[in-house]
């Protein structure tokens, strides 16, 4: 034979490379150019400043076409010397769900055909606070607060030891230096391992393209926070990353009519959250799971 040097190993290598190229070409060519770009986009944390700018420009253009509004997409980094913590006073929460809808408006979550909420207000019988499995979050009385019940709003607890980050097979979710657990929606493949791992039910999944009425879209967004998501992306509370990195209170804190919600920097001894931890009776939800959550529930005392 003339090509005697053509070994079996070489043949397999060449064959598999050609086969892979041949298989992936029709897959990629069946998508539009934009989808291909999205698919091949780099991980947010690995992008250079230049690449980030390009992606932002592309996204702003796309959102303008989709929602008819000029979007401001921020990629602001974490502030130095910050670790965000949240406080919620259970003796004052009346279960009115104002926070739930303020959050939806601020964070561009889907409104219908899969309504997604980042906050879930649980109603529990008074004196039954530890039995979370007996809770109800579809309660609909005429007026609140009801006698004999307490309300426990639950959202992402921004764990310092987050189980959702550990299980992500592709590092699409990670912890920022200021303690916020962020998601790269483009990198997420929608396997939903993180949803299964979260003991607080803090994450929600876009089963379909999200539906946000054009007049209700919030155009001030952060890349890792409230920018409109796509189908098959997992999302969750980010402590309003777009607000708190500018020193502004999260939307739920501003919406609460009873002032039960508190926010601050855990590293600043003069902050509101440190005042609460030092002087109030504080507990964290499911502390026994060693998640080290930064969401402190407290009581008047």
């Amino acid at each position, binding site marked *: 034979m003339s090509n005697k040097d053509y070994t079996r190993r070489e043949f397999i290598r060449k064959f598999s490379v050609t086969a892979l190229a041949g298989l992936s070409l029709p897959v990629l060519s069946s998508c539009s150019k934009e989808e291909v770009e999205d698919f091949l986009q780099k991980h947010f944390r690995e992008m250079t400043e230049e690449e980030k700018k390009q992606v932002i420009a592309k996204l702003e253009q796309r959102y303008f076409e989709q929602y008819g509004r000029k979007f401001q997409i921020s990629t602001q980094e974490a502030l130095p010397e910050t670790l965000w913590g949240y406080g919620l006073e259970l003796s004052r929460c009346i279960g009115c769900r104002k926070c739930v809808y303020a959050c939806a408006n601020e964070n561009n979550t889907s409104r219908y055909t899969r309504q997604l909420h980042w906050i879930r207000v649980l109603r529990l019988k008074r004196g039954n606070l530890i039995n979370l499995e007996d809770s109800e979050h579809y309660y609909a009385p005429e*007026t609140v607060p009801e006698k004999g019940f307490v309300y426990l709003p639950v959202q992402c607890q921004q764990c310092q030891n987050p189980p959702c980050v550990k299980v992500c097979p592709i590092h699409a979710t990670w912890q920022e230096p200021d303690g916020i657990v962020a998601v790269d929606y483009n990198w997420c493949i929608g396997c939903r391992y993180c949803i299964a791992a979260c003991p607080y039910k803090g994450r929600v999944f876009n089963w379909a393209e999200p539906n946000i009425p054009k007049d209700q879209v919030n155009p001030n967004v952060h890349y890792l926070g409230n920018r409109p998501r796509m189908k098959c992306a997992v999302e969750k509370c980010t402590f309003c990353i777009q607000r708190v990195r500018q020193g502004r209170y999260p939307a739920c*804190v501003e919406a609460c009519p009873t002032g039960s919600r508190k926010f601050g920097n855990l590293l600043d001894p003069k902050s509101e959250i440190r005042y609460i931890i030092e002087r109030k009776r504080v507990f964290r939800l499911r502390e026994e799971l060693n998640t080290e959550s930064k969401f402190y529930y407290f009581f008047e005392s």
Partner: protein
Amino acid sequence: MELKFIKMQRTIHALAIILLILSAFSSLALGAGQEFPVPPPPFTEGIFPCSQCHASMETNWKKRELKDEHTKIRMHHAETMRWCLDCHDVKNRDKLRLYNGELINFTESHRLCGECHGNLYRDWRAGIHGKRTGYFMGTGKRTYLLCAHCHDPHEPKFKRVIPEPPPFRPMDRQNVK
């Protein structure tokens, strides 16, 4: 040489003492003069200044049911022991009156509330009781609210409110295509 050293030590001591005294004063001043810029108090429209009616009226000290004016005020705030003139000043109707006789503006009414509700006042000053909006750090503006913005001072207990609708259930019409 040694003399010079001792002199230097003395000046350092003196400086340290002066600094200590200064810092003590400044912290005191900060504590006392902490200001809470608040939005205008929630008056019923056209009711302020109170003196435009009350200046020409005679003072009636008797505790009674108000029939001509202020009929909407329901007094449910330790009503067995309290009457209008315990908080509102008699001579200057546009002011509130503290225990020690000091007259304060309505924009400072938190000081009056704090005279009884000391523990809540302490939390309010720290930003724990009540609500803050705007910016919590940096140069942005932060808005404080008076006690009276949330609580009716004459009837401070909250009324029950209508809750927002519950989330759709997984198989609700609005959730399924």
